[in-house]
C-alpha cells in the first residue's frame, strides 16, 4: 500500500516538474518585459520557453511593415552560451543572421548572448538585433543547442559522457514606430 502511495507521489511530481520549469520561464519573460526602456515597447510576440540541449528550436513570427523591431535573446547559464542562432527571412529565404551565442572576444553583431563593453556608450551591453521590415515579413529563428560534453579528460579508450541541460530560452521582441514611416 505504502509503495503504491509512493508511486503515485513520484508520478505526480514527475508531471509537476516540467510545469514548474515552464512557469519559471514565464516569470523570466515578465522580468525582461518590465525592464524595456523607451522608445522601445514590449511586443507580445516575445516568448520564453523551456529548452533542452541536444534539440533545435524554431520560433516563427511575422514582423509588420511600419514598425522597427529589436530582438534580444537570453539563455539560462546552464547552457554556458554554447548555442547557435540563425534567422531566416522566409519571404526571401535568405539567412539574415547566423551567429554563435558566445565568442572569445565579444562585440556588437558578433555573438548573441554574451554581453560586451560598448566603447561609445561606456557600458556593458547585451547584444541586440534591429530589423526594418521593408514589407511585412515572416522570420524563422532557429536555435541549435548542442549537447555539452562533460569536462572529463578524454582518452582513446574513454569517451566523455554527454550531459543534457535544461533551462529557459527567451526571445524578447521590442518595437517602435518606424523612423522612416510607412
Amino acid at each position, binding site marked *: 500500500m505504502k*509503495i503504491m502511495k509512493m508511486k503515485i507521489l513520484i508520478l505526480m511530481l514527475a508531471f509537476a516538474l516540467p510545469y514548474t520549469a515552464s512557469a519559471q520561464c514565464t516569470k523570466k519573460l515578465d522580468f525582461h518585459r518590465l525592464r524595456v526602456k523607451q522608445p522601445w515597447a514590449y511586443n*507580445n510576440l516575445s516568448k520564453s520557453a523551456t529548452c533542452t540541449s541536444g534539440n533545435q528550436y524554431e520560433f516563427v513570427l511575422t514582423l509588420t511593415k511600419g514598425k522597427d523591431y529589436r530582438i534580444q535573446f*537570453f539563455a539560462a547559464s546552464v547552457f554556458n552560451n554554447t548555442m547557435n542562432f540563425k534567422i531566416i527571412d522566409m519571404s526571401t529565404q535568405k539567412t539574415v543572421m547566423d551567429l554563435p551565442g558566445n565568442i572569445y572576444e565579444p562585440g556588437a553583431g558578433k555573438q548573441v548572448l554574451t554581453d560586451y563593453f560598448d566603447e561609445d556608450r561606456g557600458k556593458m551591453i547585451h547584444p541586440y538585433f534591429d530589423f*526594418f521590415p521593408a514589407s511585412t515579413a515572416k522570420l524563422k529563428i532557429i536555435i541549435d543547442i548542442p549537447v555539452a560534453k562533460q569536462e572529463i579528460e578524454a582518452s582513446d579508450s574513454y569517451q566523455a559522457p554527454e550531459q543534457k541541460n535544461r533551462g529557459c530560452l527567451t526571445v524578447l521582441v521590442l518595437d517602435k514606430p518606424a523612423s522612416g514611416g510607412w
Partner: protein
Amino acid sequence: MNQKFVNSVFILLASIFILLQSCGESTENTKTDDGAIDELFDDASLEDIPGDNLTFYLIPSPKDMFDFTNDENLPYSLEVLNPVENADKYIDTKTQELGFGIYSADLAYTAAFAKTKDAIKYLSVVRDLSDKIGISSVFDESLVQRFDNVEDSKDSLMSVTNDTYFDIVKHLELNDRKSSLALISAGGWLESLYIVVNLIDEYKEDDKTIQLIADQKNIFENLILYLEQNKDDENIKKIIEDLKPIQKIYNGLEEVDIENATKPEVAAGQIIIGGARKIVITKEQFANLKQIISEIRNKLTGNNV
C-alpha cells in the same frame, strides 16, 4: 527497510523541489546597464523530460493590429464591437474562451482610441468571463484600481490593457492551459480582423490598411499551425474547421515582386527584411474576405446579423 526507503525518496523529492524554488527566486544575477540579466532559472538535473515543444508559432496580440488604426484615420465605431449583452449567451468552454479573446480585442480597440468609458464597459465583460474560465485571479484589486485611475489618454489606457493581456497569457502559461490560450488567441485575431475590415468602406489598391489585411495571411498561417499543435482538444479541432473558409481566401492571395524595389534608408546596424515581394488582395478577394469573416465572427459570437 520500507520506512527507510520512503524517507530517502521523500528527502530526495523535497530536495529537488527546494532546488527548483531556489533557482527561481534567489540565484544571484549579473545585470548590465542595458537591463540584461543572466537567466535565473538553471536546471542541469532534469533529463529527458518529454513534451518539449520544438516549434513555436508566435501570434501577435490585438493591440498590434490597432497600433496602426490611428495613423490611418480609421473611424471609431461601437457598432463593429461585439455587444456586451452577448456574453450571457456563452455557456460552454469553447464559446467562453473564444468570447474572452473576442472581448479582449474589443477592449484593445477601445483603448487604441482612448475611449475610457467604453473600455471600462468591455473590461467588465472580460472580467466576468475570466471568472467563468477560471482566470479571475488576473484581475486583482491593483489592476482594477489602475483601470479606475486611468487617465483619458491613449498611452495610459493602452498600457493598462496591454499589461492585462500579458498577465492573462502569463497566467494561462503558468497553469499549462495551452488550448485555452490557443482559443483566446484565435478569438482575439478574428475579432481584430473583423473590426478592421468593417471600418473600411471602400477598397483602394494601394491603401496601407488594405495591405495590412493582406499581410495578415502570414499571421493567419501561424495561427492555424499553432492551433494544429493543440488539436487534440475537441474545441480547437472545431475552431480550425470554423476558420477553413478564411484559409481558402488567404491561400488564394498572390505574392508578387515589388516593382522598382529600392533599398530603403535605414539606421546603422538595422537589418532589412522583406521588401522584394508583397501579398496582394484584389477588390473581389477583399469583399469575399469581409463577408466570410463577418459570417464566421457573427456565428461564433451569436450575433444574428
